[in-house]
């Protein structure tokens, strides 16, 4: 659609993507003590993917794979405490000294959050596909002409 003809948007989004991804990763790890968390991180990644999709940049496409991986991670995290005799979803906290970072405290909530992120990202990819976002960035094909004929080709973001 719109932004494929706008090199500025394209360049801008391409440049912003790594920063946004870093923000997402930060939110994912910071979530336990500060604003953030798996859901927010997923939304940031999702926003990056959405913007890249509408500008026709390369994006991951495997919504189902991501969702499956997410659910597997979550269920594994949930069930793992059962193996050592604890209750379902019991939280384990690990605290170690790492070079450069100093004392790092993390827990089984982290993989749980990673799973949530994966599912949210997968859902957003599925939504974008459902809305036909990927097709918008391509030149109109004969098969889809009847839908794209109503597209407002001149609109700008």
């Amino acid at each position, binding site marked *: *659609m*719109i932004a494929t003809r706008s090199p500025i948007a394209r360049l801008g989004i391409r440049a912003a993507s790594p920063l946004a991804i870093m923000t997402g990763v930060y939110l994912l790890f910071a979530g336990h003590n500060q604003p953030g968390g798996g859901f927010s991180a997923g939304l940031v990644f999702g926003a990056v993917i959405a913007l890249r999709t509408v500008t026709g940049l390369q994006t991951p496409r495997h919504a*189902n794979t991501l969702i499956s991986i997410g659910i597997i991670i979550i269920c594994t995290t949930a069930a793992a405490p059962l193996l050592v005799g604890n209750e*379902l*979803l019991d939280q384990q906290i690990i605290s170690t000294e790492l070079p450069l970072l100093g004392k790092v405290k993390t827990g089984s909530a982290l993989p749980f959050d990673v799973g949530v992120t994966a599912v949210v990202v997968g859902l957003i990819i599925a939504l974008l596909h459902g809305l036909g*976002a990927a097709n918008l960035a391509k030149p109109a094909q004969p098969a889809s002409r009847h839908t794209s004929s109503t597209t407002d080709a001149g609109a700008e973001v």
Partner: protein
Amino acid sequence: MLWILFSVHGAGIGAAVAAGQRSMHAALRTAAIAPAATGVWAIWSVFTNAEPRVYEITWVEALDLVIRFRTDSLALLMTAIVSGIGALVFVYATGYFSPGATGGSRFAASLLAFSTSMLGLVLADSVWTLFIFWELTSVTSFLLVGFNNTKVEVQNAARRALMITGGGGLALLAGLLLLGRSSGTTILTDLQPAEGTAGILAALLILTAVATKSAQVPFHVWLPGAMAAPTPVSAYLHSATMVKAGVLLMAVTGSAFADVDAWKIVGLALGISTMLWGGIGALRHVDAKLILAWGTVSQLGLLVTLLALGSGKAIFAAMSMLVAHALFKATLFLVVGEVDIRTGARDIRELGNLYKTMPFATGAAVLAGLSMAGAPPLLGFTTKEAAIEAALGMEGIEQVVSVVAVTLGAVITVAYTTRFLWCVFGPGPHTLVTERRLAMTIPASFLALAGIAGFIALGPVTTIVRRAATELNEKSNVYELIRWPGITTAFLISMGVLVAGGAMAVLLITRSQSARTNATAPSPLGANNADQALDGILAVSRRVTSFVQHGSLPVYVAVMALTASVATIPFFTDLTIDHLTWWDHPLQMVFALAIAATALVGAFVNSRLGAALTLGAVGIAVCGIFVSYGAPDLALTQLLIETIVVVGFVTGLGHLNREFPKVVNTWRSVRLVVSGLGGCAVVVALISATASPSGTAPLEVLAGQAVETGGGNNVVNVVLTDMRALDTLGEVVVLAVVALGIAALATQPEQAPDEEVMA
């Protein structure tokens, strides 16, 4: 042991699916293993008279939900039939289907799944277990009847079978729950005699279930239709196993209804009318498989009649009949399948001279047919004697009715059996026959010979049947099957039946010889009406759906907003505004004004993109309010969501016109009223909700717990990932399901949905 066998069945289903990728035959051979193993175990246990054992898994203890199986004599006998015949049917199917047949995974896996459900059904010892497996047999039988799923009449037949038998399952559940309530237990073997109105109601409900599953008039219409299934399925489901489920249910629950008159009266009415109507149906039809199907209906009627009589003798006769019928009817179906495959015809007017070309099949069919007609020296003869004896053993009006009915039913049985055998195998038009398939001949011959073996080894058979019957009625333990009864009343009746039936058959055959060329197949009485009734229900539901699910987004929104407005009416009664303040921080007023202004702009913007952007602005202003209240987490999430939503809008808008369509004035005023009402409702609800906060804010407690057990300072996140992690797990699964739904909606179906095709 039982758990191992169930696991083998489960593994077998998976293995059959895998093997079906290679070929139909591989799938069938793989699937045969589980029933074969179970059959051997069951037959061994039956002959060694193994002690009954109870296998139990508690599911939800508080609700008395248990999966409970019991291996008593009756259950083991039924298991032997289900799994023994099942294994033979799998072998037979390798002959029935050509090696290159497609759908191997589906067929073999469904048939084994059915076999597993049936196994669970006959062994079930609790109300819930029985119900679950009962419905599972309905569902798997639906899959099997509808195996050739491209034909409309097959689809109709499968749907009819599912609706009738599955619907009967609901009656079963209601009846069993009533019975369980009055007995105070959900264990089948502990059910106490029922009485009073509840007893009558339970009896009627359970008889409905019996009638649907065991094809009693007027629910029998599904069974002839189900002959659309491949013949191995008919031989297995529609003669030996599934249709016996109703009879079995009647046998198991019979003792609880010994004092309920309705049980006996309705049961006899069902049984006798079915026995006679089924017999007449078998005489009317010209398709060999349909003749057998109607014959099955008739025989099931006889079984229900005997069980309704309920005396020790009748129960004993019913159990022996159950065994004999499974043997001879399965044989006949297997033979008809072989005839069908090797000649390409099932119409008895086109078949003839098969005794020359298919001697083994003819032999098996004649043995099984004579057993069905009740001719000596076969198992069917002694069981029919037992049935007549049981009828003679009743008193008063019951004796008269049951003797007349059983005799009449037997005469018709002899007549349609003779007609069937003569017309299919006897002299007639010469039918071309392809070469023999051993895999089909062997199982049929095996079952047919079992009929003779049963007559020769009548002692052990009596013992086994008596053991099963005694579990149902203690008075059954004195009876036995008799090889040569001497000149008794029952024997005389039996001989009279053979003569009368034979004469009737000769009459029919000579008449139909002259009418052979122009006779047409009779219409399936009742089946069309059942289909019409179903179509009517579907049409009504479609109309209701199109009314309720209007499909117009504005209408949905209007309905929801109006409903919400109506729901706030109770709050008006004690509305106070004393607790309201203008702001906690002046910035909040700025944000509030911004929200109001952007929302107002959004309402007047004509461009779709502009409207989307103003909505985004409203959301971001809401973020500001969150921040001013010190909820950064909430604000962050809101901000991100707004971003995604705006991008989503922009993406979606690509498909639409740039401007909103013009709105007519009436619709505009409707919108104004609805949004005004919705806005007022939200204000009222919020004011009254904040007026009287209840309880204490959980913040202190949560913050403490978050650091202590969750190891984090972000309370919201610790709640999500630790304290209420199970909720999050559920929500994530919901998200995944939503994604699946989107994928399904966004993908254009390549052809019309099944519903449309079937309608």
